[in-house]
């Protein structure tokens, strides 16, 4: 656009290169020229045009010769100046850029001339030029967030659909074919760009790439065998499938198996996001296994397993004793409240007997506990998350009696509340209409009313006792659920934290770019404006938010309001509902 300032994006590595031709891409919508490389003398124009056509075919980026670059030693190289101006006739480009620099000084001069007659009268033949320096290597390797819409690769020269600067990043990233030759190559054209001192490569990276193919195939076969074995019919039979669905270890192992299948699949990652996800999963699994092995070595040293097993039975006994004391307290006059003696004794004795059975089972199991713990401790080598899930399951198993008490108390309370509500309606002469789902008035017989009122009175007076038992056992259950919840939170954290992305943001911040920032360089009146474009890295919270891995999904689905409602009406709460579980 005539009159608009022309922006020339110039790589910092070419600022000290010898004189030559500027090669790059011209974006007319933003009036910007992205310079990618400098072609040095001597060259044959036909060969330069051939090279540009080759690169265009390989990368679908429309490159052209944009102008000339003059790096003068002294003031007296006028002949070079005339020669360079003559080149404008061979490689015609609108507008023709002429950048010039004195060797050893910071004084630059730029000119952009147009040959054709300008479309509007009064528009200048020469455009104002603004130089923007950029680090080619960093711009090539970085990735903008949010990623701009990728233009169709088959559609030829990409239009700068996604904003001016995304077009610059896109151009540099797709012109990799231009940067493959360095100054040690014997090609016909000599280029200067970020890799002209030698193509960047690493032996370890190349070896890893070669080795990754067969390793991936091997591990993919192994993982598919394991998945096939776990999906076999035996495990779908009723007792086993019920147990598998309740244990959180199985859920965690399944999640890990899925993740490993994703990482070692033989398909290449289609876009950078998928590649990051694979890398994050791999690093997370490795860290998990490392922490698990550390835990394992700690557990198996100094006979800690034996100490743990010896401490387990007394702890279970102690918990049972405390529960007994609690029940004795409830059977007396808890907190000064007067209970209904008969119901109190019945409920108290029922729970005490249950507790007695539980203690007997624990004592029966006690000789085997050390063996079991030793074998279960070995599973920590699969990862710290597996060990934590096992801990959560052990807690659930050891507090199974509390769960049972909670269920009995809740069911009893729920029945009572249901009975009370329907009898309360009878007391007022109303009835619940199931068909219309509303309360209707109803005329009852005298004997119906009599019995109904009697039952209502009985239930009302027995309510405090049941409510107290329900309250106590619900609180205990919520305590156990809170402890399990904390463990699950920790497991989720380890599962979903994107460690590779965080490490990349720490060590190579230019790889994850939120945008760019500009700095105005030394400026003199009469000289063109020079800016330095640097990469603005993504903040850490955005990195975690963008690259967070999906976790097991065992989050409580209730809001506080619905939780309170369920507690009040005695409905059972299942806070850690796994995905795909059937309703009880």
């Amino acid at each position, binding site marked *: *656009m005539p*009159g*608009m*300032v022309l*922006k020339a994006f110039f790589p910092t590595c070419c600022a000290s290169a010898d004189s030559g031709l500027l090669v790059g891409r011209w974006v007319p*919508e*933003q*009036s910007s020229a992205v310079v990618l490389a400098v072609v040095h003398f001597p060259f044959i124009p036909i060969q330069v045009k051939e090279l540009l056509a080759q690169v265009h075919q390989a990368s679908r980026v429309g490159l052209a010769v944009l102008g000339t670059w003059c790096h003068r030693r002294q003031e007296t190289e006028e002949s070079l100046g005339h020669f360079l101006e003559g080149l404008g006739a061979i490689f015609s480009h609108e507008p023709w850029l002429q950048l010039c620099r004195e060797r050893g000084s910071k004084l630059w001069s730029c000119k952009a001339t147009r040959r054709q007659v300008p479309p509007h009268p009064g528009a200048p033949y020469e455009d*104002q030029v*603004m130089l*923007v320096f950029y680090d080619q290597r960093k711009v090539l390797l970085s990735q903008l967030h949010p990623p701009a819409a990728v233009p169709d690769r088959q559609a030829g020269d990409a239009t700068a659909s996604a*904003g*001016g*600067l995304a077009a610059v990043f896109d151009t540099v990233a797709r012109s990799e074919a231009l940067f493959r030759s360095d100054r040690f190559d014997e090609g016909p054209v000599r280029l200067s760009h970020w890799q002209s001192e030698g193509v960047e490569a690493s032996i370890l990276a190349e070896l890893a790439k070669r080795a990754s193919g067969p390793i991936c195939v091997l591990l993919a076969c192994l993982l598919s065998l394991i998945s096939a074995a776990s999906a076999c019919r035996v495990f779908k039979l009723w007792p086993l499938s019920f147990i598998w669905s309740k244990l959180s270890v199985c859920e965690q192992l399944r999640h890990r198996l899925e993740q490993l299948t994703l990482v070692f699949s033989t398909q290449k990652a289609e876009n950078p996001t998928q590649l990051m996800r694979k890398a994050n999963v791999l690093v997370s699994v490795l860290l998990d296994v490392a922490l698990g092995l550390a835990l394992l070595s700690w557990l198996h040293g100094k006979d800690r397993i034996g100490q743990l097993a010896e401490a387990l039975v007394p702890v279970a006994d102690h918990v049972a004793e405390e529960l007994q004391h609690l029940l004795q307290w409830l059977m007396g006059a808890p907190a000064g409240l007067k209970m209904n003696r008969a119901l109190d004794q019945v409920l108290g004795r029922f729970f005490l007997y249950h507790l007695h059975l539980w203690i007997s089972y624990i004592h029966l199991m006690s000789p085997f506990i050390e063996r079991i713990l030793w074998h279960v401790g070995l599973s920590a080598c699969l990862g710290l998350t597996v060990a934590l899930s096992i801990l959560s399951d052990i807690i659930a198993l050891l507090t199974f009696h509390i769960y049972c008490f909670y269920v009995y108390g809740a069911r009893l309370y729920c029945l009572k509340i249901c009975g009370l509500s329907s009898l309360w309606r009878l007391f007022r002469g109303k009835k619940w209409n199931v068909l219309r789902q509303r309360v209707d008035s109803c005329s009852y017989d005298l004997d119906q009313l009599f019995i109904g009122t009697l039952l209502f009175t009985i239930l009302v007076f027995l309510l405090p006792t049941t409510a107290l038992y329900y309250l106590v056992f619900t609180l205990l259950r919520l305590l156990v659920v809170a402890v399990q919840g904390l463990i699950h939170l920790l497991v989720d954290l380890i599962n979903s934290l994107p460690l590779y992305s965080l490490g990349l943001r720490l060590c190579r911040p230019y790889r994850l770019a939120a*945008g*760019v*920032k*500009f700095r*105005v360089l030394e*400026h003199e009146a009469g000289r063109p*404006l020079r*800016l330095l474009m640097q990469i*603005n890295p993504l903040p850490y919270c955005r990195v975690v938010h963008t690259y967070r891995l999906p976790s097991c999904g065992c989050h409580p689905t209730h809001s506080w309001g619905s939780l309170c409602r369920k507690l009040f009406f005695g409905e059972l709460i299942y806070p850690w509902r796994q995905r795909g579980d059937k309703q009880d």
Partner: protein
Amino acid sequence: MEDEQSFSDICGGRLALQRRYYSSSCREFCLSCPRLSLRSLTAVTCTVWLAAYGLFTLCENSMILSAAIFITLLGLLGYLHFVKIDQETLLIIDSLGIQMTSSYASGKECTTFIEMGKVKDVVINEAVYMDPVEPDGISQVVPVFQSAKPRLDCLIEVYRSCQEILAHQKATSPSP
């Protein structure tokens, strides 16, 4: 071309506005906030330490004193790194965009760059300076000089210069 003027913010503190005209298409405005005053720092430290000493005489636990020292140090570092902004800069480059930088007292710099294609206009709205930006058709208002909170006279200066550049840019760009 540089020039410096002093204004005051809405609380009455002194602000220094530095204007740099690099060229007709590039201008920079740098607003320096009042520095951290030794008086307020001493006052806060003395309060915290007196409170800690009071607790120590009650509880006879020397951990309280160490904890108070830690809290003061960490609090000061956190304040300098995350809260105290020394300078806010607005850089307008014709046909590139608008860049806003906040420099914190610890040296950290936080930069946001908005491309010119996304900037609809620069306006003064009830003495808070706002740039409406439209990504994906949704209007978003971005406040400028949030921490320095300059008064209207300072804002008018900056507003006039920005409008000059935007007018020039609109005249030469194709209509969206």
